[in-house]
């Protein structure tokens, strides 16, 4: 082409013909409003970090690094070492992930690889309902039904393993039924839907040619899953598990009701403990001054940890997503 074509006489101007019609103030105003709405996400995240850190500053200044390295939590005497709550958060979420992963993976593989279309719908339905039940309702059931039911179980298991080296440490005496393990079990139920649905999305991206190749070589269904489905989706499943972990660490109300509220670091899974989120929920009401700012400081630590876990997990999931779309 040597010269741009002249506009047709009487025809629309070139400006009106641009593909995204970027003309007129109405478009610019609408685009700006939409942009502002999008920027709101970044603004809120920044404000969360600033407002909470600002309010937690007195406690951070007073405690320094020992806020996260000391387990000496005596609010009445102004000592705020939060290590026991950090430990509790990690332990309880680890228990939850340990129980939730095999179940979630089993359901995801069942729904995507084994179930017929007719069976798949009720499976999705069950997961939807599990995800829809509010945290506080799980907590109510946990404190009034599950914990009392677990008490005799804890007692007899604790007696049975009395004196056995490792087991004696892990399963000591459970007095109330509210414990690290109880909280972990409830959390496992609560994070199963999210791990399952994300794993299913990843598994759905496995190309059928991979499955057919495995079957073609005479693989059983399980061998096909191990040879084709799992290797392809490993990264994405790891991402899904990490998102479940992030969810478990931030889960508050159910844990606050069943964990037993005791700031201690112990390997005894039957012992009562506490987590960062739970202690905030349980003690914020009666706290003031540095105590209150220390609890907000726990929120800051929780925010930073969950953001890090989520960024890492989303990074993995996004990469898998891009690969699936490119393939």
């Amino acid at each position: 082409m040597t010269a741009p074509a002249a506009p047709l006489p009487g025809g629309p101007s070139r400006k009106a013909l641009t593909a995204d019609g970027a003309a007129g103030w109405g478009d610019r105003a609408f685009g700006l409003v939409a942009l502002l709405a999008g920027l709101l996400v970044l603004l809120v995240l920044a404000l969360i970090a600033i407002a909470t850190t600002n309010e937690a500053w007195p406690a951070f200044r007073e405690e320094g690094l020992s806020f996260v390295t000391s387990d000496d939590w005596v609010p009445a005497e102004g000592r705020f070492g939060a290590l026991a709550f950090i430990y509790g958060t990690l332990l309880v979420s680890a228990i939850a992930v340990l129980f939730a992963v095999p179940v979630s993976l089993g359901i995801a593989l069942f729904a995507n690889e084994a179930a017929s279309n007719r069976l798949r719908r009720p499976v999705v339905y069950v997961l939807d309902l599990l995800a829809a039940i509010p945290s506080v309702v799980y907590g109510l059931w946990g404190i009034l039904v599950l914990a009392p039911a677990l008490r005799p179980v804890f007692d007899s298991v604790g007696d049975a393993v009395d004196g056995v080296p490792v087991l004696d440490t892990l399963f000591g005496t459970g007095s109330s039924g509210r414990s690290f393990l109880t909280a972990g079990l409830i959390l496992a139920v609560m994070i199963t839907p999210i791990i399952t649905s994300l794993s299913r999305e990843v598994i759905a991206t496995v190309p059928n040619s991979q499955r057919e190749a495995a079957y073609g070589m005479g693989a059983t269904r399980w061998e096909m899953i191990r040879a084709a489905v799992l290797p392809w989706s490993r990264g994405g499943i790891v991402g899904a598990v990490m998102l479940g972990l992030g969810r478990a660490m931030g889960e508050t109300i159910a844990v606050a009701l069943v964990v037993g509220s005791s700031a201690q670091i112990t390997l005894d899974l039957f012992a009562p403990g506490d987590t960062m989120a739970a202690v905030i929920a349980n003690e914020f009401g009666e706290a003031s001054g540095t105590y209150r700012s220390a609890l907000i400081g726990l929120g800051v630590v929780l925010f930073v940890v969950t953001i890090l876990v989520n960024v890492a997990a989303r990074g993995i999931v996004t990469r898998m997503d891009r690969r699936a779309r490119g393939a």
Partner: protein
Amino acid sequence: METRTDAASLDAASLLRTTTARGRRVRDRLASIWMIGSLLVAVVPLALVVGYVLVKGIRVIDVGWFTERISVRSREPGGGMAPAIYGTLVITGIAALMAIPLGILGAVYLHEYGRRGRLARLIRFMADVMTGVPSIVMGLFVYTAWTLRFGLSAFGGALALACLMLPIVIRSSEEMLRLVPDELRHASYALGNSKWRTIVTVVLPSASGGIVSGSMLAVARAAGETAPLLFTIGAARIVNPDVFSGPTTALSVQIFGNAQNPFPAAQDRAWGAALTLVAIVFLFTLAARFVSARISRRHRA
């Protein structure tokens, strides 16, 4: 077991059965048992929780439950849950009014304007990250940024819930906008419509089913939240008509308080409130599915 030899009925499954070594078959069977077992393991807690809530909750619910104020006596039965039901609906409603329009606009920016640009990718990623921010942190945020200055109010609770809903609405709406074929946009441009008119009159209406159902799921999630409300709405036993000032209450907060109470009458109240809350949440969830099914059917027709 009867063995069939005629070739036509010898399907792949039975071929495998007769030609695969026993150990491999056993492992395949064990894997199937694991998968089905996992599903059963997930159904048990669902059935138990829903069952307990139904059986224990239904006993305290009568007409007064929906009309009377909350009793101050935790040792004796009586009173209702009207202020908490009102609080839950009002707080969730205000949160929805804030989060849904902003969330849809944010999604419009991501898919219609930002597309694959740097800023849009950042916002999309951070919206995903924001869905993982613990709800208790949202509660602390609104406490420090709003409640410390303006006091306890239903609006404060709504702010916290809106922060939780915003990223969910953005991401689910963007997925729906992505499903709108570009041909529709081009057809609208060809008719002389500007970009914003195209979005408002063509793109959003054709994605409306999915957007509505995604938003309703976000509302259902928010209605059940407790942690963001603990420090922002306070505790009241009567209906507070002023949403901008003064303490109010909500079903989730009532459950949390009464669950820790040693007296059976208070625990019964917690079960009743749990049944009411679960009913509200399930209704929204079901309505979301219904709306999306209905609208997508109309569009296909």
